[in-house]
């Protein structure tokens, strides 16, 4: 026993000796380490990825016909394409490709690869496919005219701004056809072949500035530089995106220098991070809108005076200051800051007298009882409570229903809610991606879910969708927004900001309003 005890003590001492002198990892001067929550990634295949992190990483690995520069998001620029033509009727688009682009495999990127990539999106028909198929793109509507010319036929005339933004979206990434075909396999879902979907979910066949080295879910994504990129050879050799779900843990690691960038920090952490001289905070308005959805068929909510009273009863500044820690801005438009067409005009401010008068005019001087559904993740429960308190001041008693996502969204889609606290983020980088769901009930998204069937706004949005003059198109959105703000089924709450902690030895970092618009290639490290 004595001997065993002695061995135990010796072993413990050995462990302590091994552990205590830890001094941190070194030798990372050409490696960028980013700490972020990436557990939402399901696949890194452009035809399937539709999660925040998945699209963001996939966008670094692949190139598209058009792309946004690292610091401007109003309209995309040429990337793989170097020129285009459009037919008289606006339905046939022809793109001339660059001839100097090679995939990571060494294969030349040609029109056949573009055709294959678009066709596989249509064939696989996964979540992001609608971004292309909404233009009527089918397997037989795209062809290679010659080695470096692609022709795409649409089913209608569409606004070039919308179409181009969609061509710059992750789903329109060009995949190395030869590599994808080599890894084709038959699966239960795709008995005729999966077009490389299974393999591409964890591997890459792109031409982008970064090459996927490894993705281990819940651990890390490792990207190696593609020094031969035709336009943006990265300045660093490697990027490691480390999965750190817990924000406090991200904060400690960026302060300690174990990671270079702590992605998306919360307001209370930002306050303490700002005291650290080795760091700076980089922020950008997120292209997200938090709103209160109002089902216009539910009792008193059918009366626009009640909806307007609700909009006037909300303590917008209190919510932004106390719950969002100031990292948000009031918003009274469905077009977030960063998109063309954004307006900072304020329609609604907290005005309890006006709200109470509207309630009395509508026949509810003593208020009424109503339910509000909301999600279970921060800040939804906190926001819901703040809204409950706000509405109580004009006599509206709100019963809160905290639901997990698999309960919340089916209820919303089934139009069974009274009030719902929700948020909306763009599917692609154009105001149409917000205008359509918020104002065109025929798209069967937000306007439809809140049972706000306004044929006028629906027709205006459809007209905007085909308007080739961008200025005229934006003017239509603004006009529609005025109607929606005045009588629509929403109370717009705020547009949050993304705030990231960046160590001072990192240069050329530009915070982007969404992860897929963030470019890793310009970043340098001292």
């Amino acid at each position, binding site marked *: 026993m004595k001997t065993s005890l002695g061995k135990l003590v010796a072993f413990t001492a050995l462990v302590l000796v*091994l*552990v*205590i002198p830890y001094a941190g990892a070194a030798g990372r001067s050409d490696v960028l380490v980013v700490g972020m929550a990436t557990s939402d990634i399901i696949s890194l295949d452009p035809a399937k990825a539709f999660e925040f992190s998945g699209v963001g990483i996939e966008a670094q690995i692949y190139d598209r016909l058009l792309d946004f520069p690292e610091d401007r998001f109003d309209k995309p620029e040429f990337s793989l394409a170097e020129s285009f033509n459009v037919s008289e009727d606006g339905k046939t688009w022809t793109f001339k490709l660059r001839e100097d682009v090679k995939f990571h495999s060494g294969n030349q990127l040609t029109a056949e690869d573009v055709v294959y990539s678009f066709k596989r999106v249509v064939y696989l028909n996964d979540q992001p496919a609608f971004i292309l198929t909404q233009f009527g793109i089918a397997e037989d509507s795209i062809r290679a005219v010659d080695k470096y010319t692609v022709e795409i036929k649409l089913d209608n005339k569409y606004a070039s701004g919308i179409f181009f933004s969609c061509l710059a979206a992750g789903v329109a990434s060009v995949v190395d056809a030869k590599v994808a075909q080599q890894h084709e396999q038959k699966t239960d879902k795709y008995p005729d072949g999966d077009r490389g979907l299974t393999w591409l979910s964890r591997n890459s066949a792109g031409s982008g500035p970064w090459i996927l080295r490894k993705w281990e*879910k819940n651990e890390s994504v490792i990207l190696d530089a593609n020094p031969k990129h035709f336009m943006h050879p990265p300045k660093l050799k490697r990027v490691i995106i480390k999965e750190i779900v817990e924000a406090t*843990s991200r904060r400690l690691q960026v*302060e300690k220098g174990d990671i270079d960038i702590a992605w998306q920090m919360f307001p209370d952490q930002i306050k303490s991070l700002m005291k650290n001289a080795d760091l700076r905070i980089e922020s950008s308005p997120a292209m997200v809108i938090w709103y209160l959805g109002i089902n216009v068929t539910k009792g008193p909510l059918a009366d626009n005076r009640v909806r307007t009273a609700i909009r006037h009863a909300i303590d917008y500044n209190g919510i932004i200051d106390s719950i969002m820690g100031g990292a948000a801005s009031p918003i009274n438009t469905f077009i977030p800051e960063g998109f063309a067409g954004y307006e900072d005009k304020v329609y609604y401010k907290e005005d309890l007298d006006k709200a109470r008068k509207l309630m009395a005019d509508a026949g509810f001087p003593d208020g009424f009882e109503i339910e509000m559904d909301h999600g279970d993740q921060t800040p939804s429960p906190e926001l819901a409570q703040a809204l409950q308190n706000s509405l109580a001041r004009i006599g509206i008693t709100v019963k809160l229903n905290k639901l997990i996502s698999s309960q919340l969204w089916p209820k919303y*889609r089934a139009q069974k809610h009274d009030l719902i606290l929700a948020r909306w983020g763009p599917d692609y980088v154009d105001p149409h991606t917000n205008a359509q769901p918020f104002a065109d009930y025929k798209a069967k*998204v937000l306007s439809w879910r809140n049972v706000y069937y306004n044929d006028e706004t629906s027709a205006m949005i459809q007209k905007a969708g085909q308007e080739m003059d961008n200025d005229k198109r934006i003017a239509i959105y603004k006009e529609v927004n005025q109607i929606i703000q005045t009588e629509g089924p929403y109370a717009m709450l705020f547009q949050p900001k993304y705030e990231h902690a960046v160590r001072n030895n990192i240069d050329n970092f530009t915070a982007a309003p969404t992860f897929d618009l963030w470019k890793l290639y310009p970043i340098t490290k001292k």
Partner: protein
Amino acid sequence: MLQYLIRRVVTLAITLIGIMVVTFFISLVIPADPLSSIAGPQAPQETVDRLRKLYGFDQPIYIQFGRYANRLAHGDLGTSFQTGRPVLEDIAKYFPATFELATIALFFSIIVGIPLGVLSAVYRNSPIDHFSRVLSLIGVSMPVFWLGLVFLLIFYFKLGWFPEPGRLDIMLIEPERLTGMLLVDSLIALDWEVFFDALKHMFLPAFVLGLYGLAGIARIVRSSMLDVLSQEYIKTARIKGAREFIVLTRHALRNALIPAVTIIGLTYGGLLEGSVLTETIFSWPGLGRYLGTAFLTLDLNAVVGGTMLVALTFCLVNLVVDLLYAFLDPKITLARS
């Protein structure tokens, strides 16, 4: 003995089938829609309906169950929605990380908890007893989330004694994956750099998890020891002139260990489920986070597969505990138990 084991294996198989049936039906009848969660909040209803068809959720429940049972009979647990990979592959990936951490944590709980319990009983109401009580109280009552963050703050951030959260320094290359347990794989590959780095990364999460187990073990050993120490045979041993150390270890502790073994078994079973919170704080890619996400998103295949794994683990741990009873107390025979 063999007959006993066969009986237990048959019971285990029936238990697993029961767990599978119950979990499958509960997952399908609760008022929530996994497809809605997969499609995300923005997708229109058409997308949800298309995915429902693609995943076969548009079929009647009995057909879905038949398909699932048929697949299971062929050793296929299905594909996870959240990872897009076969559930069996996911479990093979995440369980070793949890197993390694849980085993080290339990080892810590035992080597500290048992001596602490014995000393508390022998030196009742002394400073060591008070220390043990406070430590147990901390282990049991402090939320593991809070404890983990505080330990990170002190031992990683302020003192720098331990490395950042994660299983391994991100600049190191993992050895060839044979068992999925980094310590074992690095030993097999004789990669000492990875071994020691993995050991360093293991320390804080294992300590936090171990503290929880330690609390229960120390308290049960203490109370059991107090009970045993008042027995006649202990007095007899002392009267016969046995050395106190022998009295305590050979006569008292061996008898006092039986209830402790039960607690150790339950603790180990619990640890092997994986701890969502500990794994989250320490960026540990284990089963806890995998199952936590699976439950929240109603990832049906992962939920049923994971639940069966947890049930299997508990059953096996209980079996080992029962076998240990017989070893510790020859009066207990397996045939009768």
